[in-house]
C-alpha cells in the first residue's frame, strides 16, 4: 500500500516536473546585451556617439546573438554525442564568446569625463604602474605603440598576472580574450583596435584614436579589479 502510493506520488512528480523527463537538458543560460552606464554621446569628442551606438547595439549585440546560437548548437551536439560538431563549433564560440567577454569589459573601461574618465589611477594601481613602467605616460606610450602595430583586428590590454602580481601589456588577435595569452592574466583595461571601434571618426588614423581614448579611460574600474586580484 505504502509502496504504491509513494510510486504514485513519484509518478505525479515526474509528470509535473518536466526537467525530470529530460535528465540531460538543464536550461541553457542565454546572454544578453549589458546596458551602458552612460549615454552614447557621453564620451565625445574622444569617441563619437555614432560609433558608440553602432559598437554597442550592433557589433556587441551580434556577438551575443551568435554566441547564444553557438552555445545552443553546442548543447545539442553534446547531448547527441556528436563530437565533430562539438569541435567544429569551437571557433564560433571563441570568436563570439570572446567578443562578448571583451566588449563587456570595454564598456566598463570607459567613462565620461565628468564621471572620472581620464582621471589618472591612484593608490595601489598607480604605484604599480609607476614602479613597473616608470610613469603613466610611459605605460600609455607603450600600449599605444602595441595597439598601432597590431596587424588586422584585435585588442591591446593592460593586465595583471594574478600569480606573480605583475602588470603586463599584451595584445590579442581578433576576439581572443586576454586569458588566451596566459591562464593567470586578468584584464584591467582593454582597448579595442578593430577598425569598427574608430573608423567612422578617425578613418585610417588609428594612432589618433589611441591618443584620444585615454581621455575617457575609467581608471577607477581598473583599480578595483587590480585591488581585488592583488589585495
Amino acid at each position, binding site marked *: 500500500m505504502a509502496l504504491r502510493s509513494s510510486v504514485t506520488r513519484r509518478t505525479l512528480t515526474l509528470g509535473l516536473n518536466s526537467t525530470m523527463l529530460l535528465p540531460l537538458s538543464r536550461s541553457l543560460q542565454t546572454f544578453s546585451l549589458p546596458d551602458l552606464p552612460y549615454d552614447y554621446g557621453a564620451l565625445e569628442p574622444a569617441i563619437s556617439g555614432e560609433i558608440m551606438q*553602432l559598437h554597442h547595439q*550592433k*557589433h556587441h549585440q*551580434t556577438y551575443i546573438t551568435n554566441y547564444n546560437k553557438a552555445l545552443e548548437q553546442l548543447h545539442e551536439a553534446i547531448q547527441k554525442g556528436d563530437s565533430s560538431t562539438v569541435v567544429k563549433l569551437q*571557433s564560433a564560440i571563441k*570568436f563570439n564568446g570572446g567578443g562578448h567577454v571583451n566588449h563587456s569589459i570595454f564598456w566598463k573601461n570607459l567613462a565620461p569625463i565628468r564621471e572620472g574618465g581620464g582621471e589618472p589611477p591612484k593608490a595601489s594601481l598607480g604605484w604599480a604602474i609607476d614602479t613597473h613602467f616608470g610613469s603613466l605616460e610611459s605605460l600609455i606610450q607603450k600600449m599605444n605603440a602595441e595597439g598601432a602595430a597590431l*596587424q*588586422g*583586428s*584585435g585588442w591591446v590590454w593592460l593586465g595583471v598576472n594574478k600569480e606573480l602580481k605583475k602588470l603586463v601589456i599584451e595584445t590579442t*588577435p*581578433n*576576439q581572443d580574450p586576454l586569458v588566451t595569452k596566459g591562464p593567470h592574466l586578468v584584464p584591467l583595461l582593454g582597448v579595442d583596435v*578593430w*577598425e*569598427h571601434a574608430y*573608423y*567612422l571618426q578617425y*578613418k*585610417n588614423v588609428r594612432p589618433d584614436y589611441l591618443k584620444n581614448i585615454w581621455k575617457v579611460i575609467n581608471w577607477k574600474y581598473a583599480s578595483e579589479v587590480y585591488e581585488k586580484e592583488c589585495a
Partner: protein
Amino acid sequence: MAATTSMVTSLTFTIPSLGFRLPTRSYPCVKPQRRFVRKAASNVITATYELKAPPYPLNALEPHMSRETLEYHWGKHHRTYVENLNKQVVGTDLEGLSLEDIIIVTYNKGDILPAFNNAAQAWNHDFFWESMKPGGGGKPSGDLLDLIERDFGSFERFIEEFKSAAATQFGSGWAWLAYKANRIDVENAVNPWPSEKDKKLVIVKSPNAMNPLVWDYFPLLTIDVWEHAYYLDFQNQRPDYISVFMEKLVSWETVNTRLEKAKARAAEREMEEERRRKEEEEGKPTNEEDDDDDLEMYVDNDNDDSEAE
C-alpha cells in the same frame, strides 16, 4: 634514389646576391627579374613600387561603393602599404624583385619576414581594384562558367559558398576564388597521373594579409573583408556589402582573363616538369640491353659493360 634527389636539387637554386632560395617548383614565375615601373612618357626605370590607380575613376563604383570609400581605401590604406613597403625594401636584398617574388620570399614558408605584410597587402589591393568594374556583376560565361558548374555544382551554389567564406572570415582578411592546379598536397610529391580533373576552382579565405599565392594557387577573384573596405558604406553589415559586391561589382571579364592565364601557366609548368623529368632520365646513360635490370645504376660511360649482376 639518385634520380629523385637530383631532380629535387636541380629545381631549387640560390641566387647569390639574394641569399634567399627561391624554389622554382613551387611557384611558376619566380625569376630574379626587376619590376620595371613604366612612368608615363618617361624612360626612367626605377625599382620602387608605385601605387597603381584602379582601372576606373574613384566615383565610378557608386552607389555600390562610394567615392569616399575609394578615397580612403585606395588613397590612404593602399597608399600606406606601398609607401611602407618601399621604405622596408630599399637597400635590402629584396630591392628590385617583383611584388609577387617579395611575397613568396618574405612568406618564408610561414616564418614570416617583416616586409610580407606590406607587400602582400599592396598586391592584394591591386588585385581587388582590378576584380571590380562599374556595371559589374551578372554571370560569367564560357569556360569559366563551365568550371564553376563542374566544381561547385551550380553558379548559385558557388555564390552561396563564396558569400559564406567572405562572411565567416573572422576578423580582417580576404575571400578568394582561385585555380588550384594539378598537385598533391604533400611536399615535393607530384601527381603521377595528372588529369584535367585535378585542376580545379576552389574558394579559400585568408586572414589579414595572407593570400593564395603563398599556397601556390592562382588567384582569380577576391573580396576585401577588412572592415575599412565596407564600414563607411555599410557599417557592420558585412553580408550586405558582400551581396552588393557579387551582384553589382564583380568583373567577370577580368576573372576570365585570369583563368586563361592560370590555365596557360599550369600547362606550361606541366611541360617544364615533363621536360625536366625526361632530361633526368636521358642524362643517365643506360645500356639498351640492361633495360630489364631493375637495379638502377648510374653508369658513367656508354660502355657495354655494366656492373649489374
